[in-house]
């Protein structure tokens, strides 16, 4: 077991097991205030712990920690590289923001199952952290199950018929998806006798046997159903639109992304030998179709939350573009996009939640005149939308620049055009939503000049604003974060 500096094991242990213990505490001691303080402090501590962890990953390259001290291939390894690190940061930041928002939201709506929400969040959080650092195929299956079984109740948390039927549809998609994933794991184990990702990717990639290829197919279809990638996206818009604001922020920013993260993690790591460039182009096409379909659908919606949900379907398509463009620059670009999209999407949903709280319903037409009452909220939502569309001052632009550079450097210019188109379409549906809010039916000088401060308590306002600010701040730190993201990038083509 490679000699790791003293802080890595405690950090990883904290990230995975502390939220579990917090979940147990939440079940035993259901006092709301205590649980909110617990979730916020856990979020803060994990952010603090991530800093030295990033330093170590930066210094020593990808970290490998064998659980229980058992050498591979028997034990389960935890594997942390640039991609996993970025996802951990995303989970911590979005988690903290959503936790603060949820504490305010649960009180302002006096939701009956506040305790349940906090337990679900703690367990979801530990499942996500485990998923991002896990280096074992079956372990990833178990963590996927945790995220699903925590996400479906989060959807069902929003009372009403639509939430229940959306949760039902989500559960069935996820159920079949996880069985397909399990089939893939079984085939890989039968064929290679290995489960650990580092071992699988370290094999000298001679031609993969039929079992491995079918396994890759099964795993990809399974994950596509869980991440609602284009052909299998039916459930996501209904589920994310029906869920309550903090829940849909978590679902869109983290849960859907975890499954998409796994697609690139498995395609570029252990299953590298199982696909040919032609297949990679096909995956790229699926990604682009997802981008175009999601964006066009988002342009057609009449309610606010389905627009954001379809935007998630679209933005997840970008992750698949990493497969045909498997260069280091593309790796950095796609991870950066995942990071920025996570933060911005969470900000978008939370700000949308505030607007809906303000006007009572989420029809786009009803947003008119919202700019005067909830102006700061609207500004946060607009900035988050700009980050999703990848326009300059925000981190989204840096990610888009990286991805287009990677596409042009490898001569696959068509991906660059697709990325550009995706950005434009995203800008269109973002500005469509904002123009609904800015629209004031009567000419303004007849409008009575009243600035009603909406009774939005501070806890609901600051998370979206800070998350949107983080998405913009990422625009400035491209140079700073580039070496972190490049750790563990596949040295495929230059």
């Amino acid at each position: 077991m490679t000699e790791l500096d003293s802080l890595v094991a405690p950090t990883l242990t904290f990230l995975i097991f502390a939220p579990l213990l917090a979940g147990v505490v939440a079940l035993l001691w259901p006092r709301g205030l205590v649980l909110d303080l617990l979730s916020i402090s856990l979020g803060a501590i994990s952010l603090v712990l991530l800093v030295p962890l990033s330093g170590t990953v930066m210094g020593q390259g990808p970290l490998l920690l064998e659980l229980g001290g058992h050498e591979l291939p028997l034990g389960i390894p935890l594997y942390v590289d640039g991609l996993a690190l970025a996802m951990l940061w995303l989970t911590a930041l979005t988690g903290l923001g959503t936790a603060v928002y949820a504490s305010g939201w649960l009180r302002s709506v006096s939701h009956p199952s506040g305790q349940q929400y906090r337990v679900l969040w703690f367990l979801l959080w530990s499942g996500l952290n485990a998923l991002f650092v896990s280096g074992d195929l079956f372990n990833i299956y178990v963590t996927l199950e945790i995220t699903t079984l925590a996400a479906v109740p989060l959807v069902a948390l929003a009372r009403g018929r639509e939430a229940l039927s959306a949760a039902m549809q989500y559960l069935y998609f996820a159920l079949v998806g996880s069985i397909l994933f399990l089939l893939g794991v079984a085939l890989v184990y039968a064929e290679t006798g290995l489960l650990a990702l580092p071992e699988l990717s370290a094999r000298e990639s001679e031609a993969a046997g039929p079992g491995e290829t079918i396994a890759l197919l099964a795993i990809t279809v399974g994950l596509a159903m869980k991440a609602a990638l284009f052909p299998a996206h039916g459930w996501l818009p209904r589920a994310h639109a029906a869920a309550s604001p903090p829940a849909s922020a978590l679902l869109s920013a983290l849960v859907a992304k975890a499954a998409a993260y796994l697609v690139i993690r498995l395609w570029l790591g252990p299953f590298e030998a199982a696909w040919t460039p032609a297949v990679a182009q096909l995956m790229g096409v699926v990604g682009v179709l997802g981008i175009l379909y999601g964006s066009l659908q988002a342009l057609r919606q009449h309610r606010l939350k389905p627009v954001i949900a379809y935007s998630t379907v679209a933005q997840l398509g970008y992750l698949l573009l990493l497969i045909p463009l498997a260069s280091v620059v593309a790796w950095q670009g796609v991870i950066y996009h995942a990071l920025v999209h996570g933060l911005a999407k969470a900000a978008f949903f939370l700000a949308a939640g505030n607007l809906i709280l303000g006007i009572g319903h989420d029809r786009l037409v009803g947003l008119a005149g919202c700019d005067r009452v909830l102006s700061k909220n609207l500004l946060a939502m607009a900035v988050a939308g700009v980050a999703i569309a990848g326009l300059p001052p925000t981190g989204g632009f840096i990610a888009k620049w990286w991805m287009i550079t990677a596409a042009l450097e490898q001569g696959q210019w068509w991906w660059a055009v697709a990325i550009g188109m995706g950005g434009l379409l995203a800008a269109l549906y973002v500005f469509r939503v904002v123009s609904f809010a800015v629209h004031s039916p009567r000419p303004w000088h007849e409008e009575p000049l009243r600035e009603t401060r909406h009774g939005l308590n501070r806890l609901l306002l600051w998370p979206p604003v800070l998350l949107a600010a983080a998405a913009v701040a990422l625009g400035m730190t491209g140079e700073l974060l580039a070496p972190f993201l490049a750790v563990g990038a596949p040295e495929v083509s230059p």
Partner: protein
Amino acid sequence: MMEALQDHPVWMAMPAWMVLSSLVAGLLILVLGEPYQRTRVVINLGAAVLKLVLVGFMLWGVGQGHDFEFRLPLLPGIDLYLHADSLSMLLATLSAILWLITTVYAIGYLEQSPNRCRFFGFFSLCVAATMGVSVAGNLFTFFLFYELLTLTTWPLVVHRGVSVALRAGKRYLAYTLGGGGIFLFGIIALYALMGDQVFTPGGFVDPDLPPALLIGIFLLLLVGVGVKAAMVPLHGWLPQAMVAPAPVSALLHAVAVVKAGAFGIVRLVYDVYGLDLVATLGMNHVLAIAAAITIVWGSLRALQASDIKQRLAFSTVSQVSYIALGVGIGSPMATIGGLVHLVHQGLMKITLFFCAGNLAETHGIKRVDQVDGMGRTMPWTMAAFTLAALGMIGVPPIAGFVSKWYLGLGGVENGQYWVLGVLVASTLLNAAYFLPVLRRAWFPRADAPDRGPGIHEAPLSLLIPTVATATFALGAGILAGMPFSPLQWAQFIGEQIYGVAP
């Protein structure tokens, strides 16, 4: 002592402070919120004055040949690089002066309207973007501020919130974001080929790349910049954007946005490709012809426009292409003519928009045929309007004449006599769409509705800026010979570009 000060990093990073001054002001105003009316005015004017002082220092410094640059690493191998050279000071000075004047005008204009916090916040952010465009040192930074300009101007175009404004905003976005996408594609292609290059006089693109590729990239970049410079096929958004409040259409659509596009064309030809490479590729003729078509087309459409602001908008479309024409011709005199027109057109057009604003604000006059007898009712406004209109036509003492004169000389110098034809035709067309307005204002027909005796002028806060810009336009024409006049500065830039005194 001055030398020690010169290479002190804080002094060197002057362009950054310039951009930051209005960026911070804008953000502060947005964060403050609506009720802080007085502090907002203080912040606005303070930032404008501070910017003017900074620009003055830089103008003096660049004149002495000092070097101002600021570098912030944003991407591995690519930096946010701000570098103030003579060309950037041209646009920076113009924007700084006009921003101060327009802020005063806007405070008066939007007296009781809602959402002023949002307006002034994005207003100063927009000027920060223009400053950024002017001092950008490489294509990446240029694009970053170029797109920021789009983002910050959109809220101003849709400020009124009425559905007409929203439609205009949607069209504006479609054009600018579409153009921006193409521009980004071209920039990244250049970066993929050349890596991170700084704007260098004579261009940094290496000539022995395959010409087809070079032309392709040039066209991509030209389209990207052409959208904002409102070249003919891409000008659709400008007349629509006139639905915005007067100060917005004055500063943004006559000066900031449109000039950013023209400035982009100048950078592209002189500092990215370099004149001789553009000539060898034959792109200068393409540019010149496109500019000529835009000039004539803009003037013709202006003729038909019955709404004052529409007419001024189409006049802007044609006037901005003078700059492109100067760059397209490529001779030293034509370049100086084009560059100096960048300033002159700004001064004249902003005066015209201010007057249109005054007419609309005090008397609700929006159409040309309602202007009868306004000479008597609003003498100062109409006087400024007449002076600026004559300048646009090219009547000698006013600024417009200087740039047309140099453009003509440039055309003759290069043996391209058709340029003279274009200039004469456009002058006649300018006269055709401005003179009837003047006639109606000063010599109303008998059956014109009687406006009643006495003068009913626009409020002072609107009048002073109008008169100020009119005098600037006149001064730029008369005092063209003075050391720090726009013409001298254009010649100074010409020297640096051609390396020889014209």
